[in-house]
């Protein structure tokens, strides 16, 4: 029964995704809520180019070790947006990953940004670092890198464990801009309490649409909206049937 219900949900998601993609081809991003933290992020990005400072993007760990996690990839759209400035700014952004596969993916994105900027020879592997082999080693390496005087912004986007909130505390101590964006509820709770620019719940997955990376990201958000309404209606109908003893 669970398997059938799961297949129905996946089928509905696929159909809705294709439907919204075709429906809104002309203006895919219109009619979607813009999330507050992305405007200050854009300002911080331009500021970093202007005063020649550096942005550090932390992509977090995977759900478990030795795998690439979907939530770890949730931070990639933000890295892609910030990577475009790699060619413009005095200091290229640094991407720090806590997982081998995330380090490989971020390396590809940064190398792609330099290739798009027609300056492939300027890319060096140091810009995309694998910072630590365990979550706490990753936290420790990010704290050390966070103290660098060239930094002007720490962007945390990916899957984080709650103790990573030490980085938001460090940003507060050093007066750096900090955007904290995670899909882990525990980390969201601490980021909400310690830094201004943070996202809650599933807003983590709306980064791609807000940064206009691909029209299908906008179609995904619309699909999520329809699915959440279907779930709400299903719950209410289910409760009614359960009370009546039908199911």
């Amino acid at each position, binding site marked *: 029964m669970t398997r059938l219900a799961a297949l129905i949900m996946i089928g509905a998601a696929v159909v809705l995704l294709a439907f919204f993609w075709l429906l809104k081809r002309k203006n895919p991003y219109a009619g979607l809520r813009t999330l507050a933290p992305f405007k200050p992020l854009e300002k911080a990005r331009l500021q970093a180019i202007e005063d020649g400072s550096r942005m550090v993007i932390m992509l977090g760990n995977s759900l478990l070790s030795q795998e690439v996690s979907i939530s770890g990839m949730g931070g990639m759209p933000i890295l892609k947006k910030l990577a475009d400035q790699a060619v413009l700014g005095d200091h290229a952004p640094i991407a720090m990953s806590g997982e081998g596969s995330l380090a490989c993916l971020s390396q590809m994105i940064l190398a792609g940004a330099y290739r798009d900027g027609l300056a492939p020879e300027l890319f060096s592997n140091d810009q995309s670092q694998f910072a630590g082999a365990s979550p706490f080693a990753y936290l420790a390496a990010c704290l050390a890198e966070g103290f660098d005087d060239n930094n002007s912004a720490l962007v945390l986007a990916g899957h984080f464990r709650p103790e990573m909130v030490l980085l938001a505390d460090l940003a507060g101590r050093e007066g750096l801009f900090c955007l904290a964006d995670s899909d882990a509820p525990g980390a969201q709770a601490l980021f909400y309490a310690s830094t201004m620019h943070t996202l809650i719940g599933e807003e983590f997955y709306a980064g791609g649409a807000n940064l206009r990376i691909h029209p299908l990201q906008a179609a995904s958000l619309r699909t*999520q909206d329809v699915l959440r309404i279907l779930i709400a209606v299903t719950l209410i109908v289910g409760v009614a049937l359960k009370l009546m003893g039908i199911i």
Partner: protein
Amino acid sequence: MKKVLAIITAIGVGLAVVIAYFLRPLLDPMLELLLQWGIILGSVAALVGIINLLITHWHKIRQKKEHFVFSFVVLLSFALSFMGGIVLGPQDETYIRWLAALQVPIEVSLMALLALTLTYAGFQFFRMRGWTPLSLAFGISALLFLILDIGFFQALELPFVNQIIEFLEHLPLAGGRGILIGISLGALLTGLRVLFGVERHYGE
């Protein structure tokens, strides 16, 4: 050309695993083979990451960047820890003892540091977040659960008080379930975008 091959690989392997996942145990042998290769590639990617870490610190030393002295510490401690693991074996008692002697104090202290730094977050929370339904609920809930965890009311052992406490301790269930379903929807759509060949960060 490489980009098209990569997209085909991701879509092909993804569809194969999804189909095998839902038709279990029918296609288990194929699923297991694909998963074993995934485990190997995940571990090799982790090793590539560790080698990248060593190369980054080696560059720091050679270019005499700021704080390059600490890169010596990383390379030296890596060498000792790696040789110990290979020669004695990762489950050797002596090796584990010295590993724990270094790793446990630092990691537990980092966790303890979290408590010391959260004091400032707790104090300036309302000044930073102001008065919204979310921030008020957050502040009052945090305060309530801190006090409940002290155990003062439970020690009174009054049945009615215990029932209220039990009711309050179950309150986070509703919001937690909503957040879990929301996050799962986001992950589901991200996974589908990978199978659609749209979320292709591997092909940059």
